Each structure stands twice: as C-alpha cells, then as structure tokens.
C-alpha cells in the first residue's frame, strides 16, 4: 500500500516583479510528494528550486495554482497558521546552516521545541536524542563558531528533526561542505528518513547528494523537465 500524499502542487505558478515586467520563477508546476519520500529538486541556478521549496515550506505563496501541504492550502493560511504549520509540520535545513550564533548547539536544537510549549524534561530528552542521531551529543555546549561546516550542518539537521516533522526541506544542504561531509550529512538524513519515515525534499545540483535520492525532479526555467524515480533495490 502506498504512503499518503502530503504535498500536492497543482498548476503552481510564481511570478516576481522585475522592473516593469514580471519574471516567472515557476510555471504551472504539477507535483505530489508522498510520506517517506527522499526526493530532490535538481536544476541550474534560476530554475526555481528554492522558490518551490519556499512555497512548500509556506514561506511564500504561489501567484497562481494551489499548493497543499500537510492538508493545508498554503495560499489561504494566515501568518499565524502558516507559522504553526512550519512549527509542527516542517523542518528546514539551509545551505548556510542559519544557526543562531549566540546560542550553543543544545540551545539551537532546543529552539524549535521552545515554540511548541513542551516541558523542560521533554525538551531535554528530545534535544539529546536529536544530537545522538547526528553524533553531536558531546558538542552540546559548543558554540556554532567553534564547529566545522559539517558539524554545523549536522546541528541544523538535528534542529530540523528534533520536533519530528512530517516534512523536511533542505535547500542545497551540501553546497558549503567538502565531499566527505556532504556524504556524511546526506547519509545521516537518509538514515533518519528510513528510521522516522520523514519526507525529505532537497534542492540540489550536487551529484553526491543526487546518488542518494529516491526521486529526482529536474526543473528548468520554472517547469518540471523530468521526474525520475529510482527503482527499488
């Protein structure tokens, strides 16, 4: 039996003002993502990968079409509702990690839970579990400035995963990492995908990342060029 669909994009179009004209970043995208998928958006710069991730992450709204994420129509959500959707349902991993510099590793990971009003003991257990998943439990008190790029991205993965979201969006997560670290963090995410059945959607043009993806969606000029799934086994 197939997993349920958690993201549906129906004729999603996104235009940005560019001087007196409008630039079409996404053009009538039709896609669905099922729970537990480990998929990636691939394409050159300007192909619309990040724009699509932003819409799925409810950070932006489509100009036309309907984007439904975890049962919510993104365009109809208020600021508060979309914040709630991100808070409980979506984890983000950014190219530049976006860790909060004044917090230590533990605090950075805990931050995602502070908004969920969990008790202190619940938060502590969840944070330590997440740091164990990424192998950084011993660096809990370290500041981001003392970590390597790979370690920072692992902290970012722990932060995205600590609230056990249904969906994780990773925007070029390996772009600032060397080859070894790129493999390591994608392997970590792949493991978490298997263990927790979390849906991962990447935007990438990194071959090292692509080899781990179960599904690759090629974007070009804001349109889906190809949608390839790896055969099982």
């Amino acid at each position, binding site marked *: 039996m197939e997993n349920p669909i958690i993201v549906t994009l129906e004729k999603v179009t996104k235009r940005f003002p560019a001087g007196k004209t409008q630039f079409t970043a996404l053009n009538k995208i039709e896609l669905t993502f099922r729970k537990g998928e480990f998929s990636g958006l691939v394409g050159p710069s300007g192909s619309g990968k990040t724009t699509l991730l932003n819409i799925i992450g409810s*950070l932006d709204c489509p100009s036309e079409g309907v984007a439904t994420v975890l049962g919510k129509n993104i365009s109809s959500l208020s600021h508060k509702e979309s*914040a709630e959707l*991100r808070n409980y349902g979506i984890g983000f991993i*950014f190219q530049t990690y*976006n860790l909060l*510099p*004044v917090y230590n590793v533990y605090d950075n990971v805990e931050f995602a839970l502070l908004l969920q009003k969990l008790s202190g003991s619940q938060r502590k257990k969840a944070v330590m579990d997440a740091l164990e998943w990424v192998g950084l439990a011993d660096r809990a008190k370290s500041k981001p400035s003392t970590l390597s790029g790979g370690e920072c991205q692992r902290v970012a993965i722990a932060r995205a995963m600590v609230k056990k979201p249904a969906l994780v969006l990773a925007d070029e997560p390996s772009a600032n990492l060397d080859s070894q670290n790129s493999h390591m963090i994608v392997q970590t995410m792949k493991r978490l995908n298997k263990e927790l059945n979390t849906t991962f959607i990447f935007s990438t043009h990194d071959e090292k990342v692509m080899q781990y993806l179960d599904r690759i969606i090629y974007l070009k000029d804001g349109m889906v060029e190809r949608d390839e799934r790896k055969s099982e086994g």
Partner: protein
Amino acid sequence: MLELKLAFKNLYGSGLRTWLNVTVLSIAFVIILFYNGMLDGWNMQAQRDTIDWEIGSGQLWHPGYDPYDPYTFADAHSSIPPEISTLIERGDAASILLTQATAYPGGRMLNTLIKGIDPNQKILKIPSELLTADNSDPDYIPAIIGRRFSQSARLKEGDRVLVRWRDSNGTFDAREVTIVSVFQTNVPTADLNQIYIPLERLREMTSMYNEATLVVLSQGAVAPQQYGGWSYRDNDYLLKDLKDIMTAKKGGSTVISGLLLAIALLAIFDTQVLSIFRRQKEIGTYIALGMTRKKVVGLFTIEGTTHSLLAILLGMIWGVPFLLLLQKTGIPMPASADQAGIAIADKITPYYGAGMILTSVILVVLSSLVVSYIPTRRISRMRPTDALRGKIV
C-alpha cells in the same frame, strides 16, 4: 516568557555592545534618580525650614494684610480677637506685628521690616528668647537679625543701628536698636531686611497696644477659619510660592533628565536598527522555525527593552551605594545659592521616595520599550524568503 529568555540570551551573546548600552542607560537612570532625589530633598527641606522659621502650622492674617503689597502694612494691624487671644494664651499661637521702617547702618539707608515677636514664643525657630531685655536703660531695644541681612547691612552682634518708623498716627520716630544676636537660617524670607525686636516694645514704639498683624499657629492648634475678619491661611496656601518655584525647578530638571535619557535611548535605537539590518537571516530563520512575525517583533522589542531592565539592575548595583552616600553626606550648596530667594540649606539631603523611584523605573522601561519597538515594525513588512537570504536593504 520565551521572548524574555531569548532576549537575555541574545543580549548576553552580543557582549560589549550590550554592556555599553546598558552602562549608558544606567548612568542616565541614576542621574535621573539623583536629580529628582535632590530636588525632592530640597523641596522637603525648604518646606520644613519655612514652616519652622516663618509660617508655623498656618497663620491668621489681619484682613488688611497682604505680604505682597507693602503699602498694606501700615494699616494691617488691630487688636487680636478674643478667640485668637485664647490660642496665644494657651501657647498654641504667637502674634507678630509688622512695621515698615528705615535703617541707617553706617550712614546708609536701607528699607527694612521690623517684626515684633514675643520673646517667649516657641512656635518659630527664630531665637526670640535672646530678645529678653536685661538692660535697665529704658531706651535699650534689643534686636536680632539674620546672617544675610547682617552681611548686606554690614551689621554684627553688638552694633547699634538707627531705625526710623511711623507710629499708628503716622508720626515719624527714630531710635537706635542693639543687635544682640545674628542668627543663621536657611529661609531668606525670614531674614533679608528684617529686624526682630520684642513684640511689646514694638507695640509701644508704634502705639499699637495689644495689636498684631498676623498670628502664627503651632502644630495641632485648631484655628477658627475666620474670626473678626481675620483669615486663616493654611500651609498649602502659605507654601504655594515655594511649591511653584520647586515645580519650575523640576521642569528644568525634567529637561536635563530627558536629554540624558534621550542620549541613552538613542544608543538603544541605533542598536535596534543595526540589529534588524544585520540579523535578517536570523529573523528569517526564526520565521522558518515557526515564529510568527508578530512574535519576532516582540522578541526584538523585548530584547531592546531588556537593555533598560539590565540598566536598572546595573544602576542599582553602583547607583544605590552612590545615592545613599550622597544622602548620608548631603550635597554641599555653593555660597551664591544663599541669595536664590528660596530656602536652601548649606547641604541638601536628597530624598529618594518610592513613588519617584517607581516613576523613574517606569519612565526608563516604557521609553526604551517605545524606541525598541519603532525599528522592529520593519520586521512585520519583511518577506521571510528575502530575510533568509539577507536581501533586505
């Protein structure tokens, strides 16, 4: 609560910049307390001294008496109504007779006011007991004057000075009075150009037997509101001028406090503007992690306002010992302040009332809240996708 916790973490993480802002604001806070404490202390001291030396616990005035119109003095005297006399006999009141006069110290001519006061009165701090004549010379008139008048007229203890006045019939008369003592008071209006002599002596000199211009009441004395045309003036009325002057001085201090606070708040405002510009990615991250824009605005506003809470804490650490030391030692006033026309002690003891402290705390916190909030309104207009890329200019 979450915002406060995050704000403290962010401020702590900001290091030196936070402490510079906090230090500047704490200095402004302590100086505001100092200024207000000094003025409140001065106000209290001035009121206390004026009551002790000049007005007592209220006065009863002859219907013709107007202290602001010297022309009324000549006619503002009459026999004391019996009910008021009863108060005087019980020691609950002391009568004073005023007569305009001219003094001729060292051949110069000075307008003066002769005040006849009962040498046995205990209501005012004027050392009237020194006027008890122990001289057999019937023409001997003992007089006491304040230090200010002593200096301006160049009179000292033991000096004799000719004074000329008009009696109740308008006839000029003149005699020499002997300065038996020069007293020290903080109240210039009980001192400048005033000569105190025994009441009965003045009555005799002016032929105003059993008459008075005003009656000073002691604490707790219950006076008739109006009797025989004499009017009761309570301390609110009698201290009005003093309070008006203090209010005007408070206005000046408010301007200085406002300027100091504005400088400190400008630093917070500047920090907030810079923070929002430099921390766009952080703002975008907060939103991506599930914070509403409203919450992010709240976070940054509280972060800015927390400067003031830290400043108050820091101000208490260094300011409380400093302010208490000033309260203990007093603030010396320059000699020129003596001529200000308002009661000023050699040293002013600041008074830090709970209300004044609370008002200052609220002022500092509220004003920092406002200047912290204004720059953060920009966050509510930010697109999170632009913020995440740090693209907002």
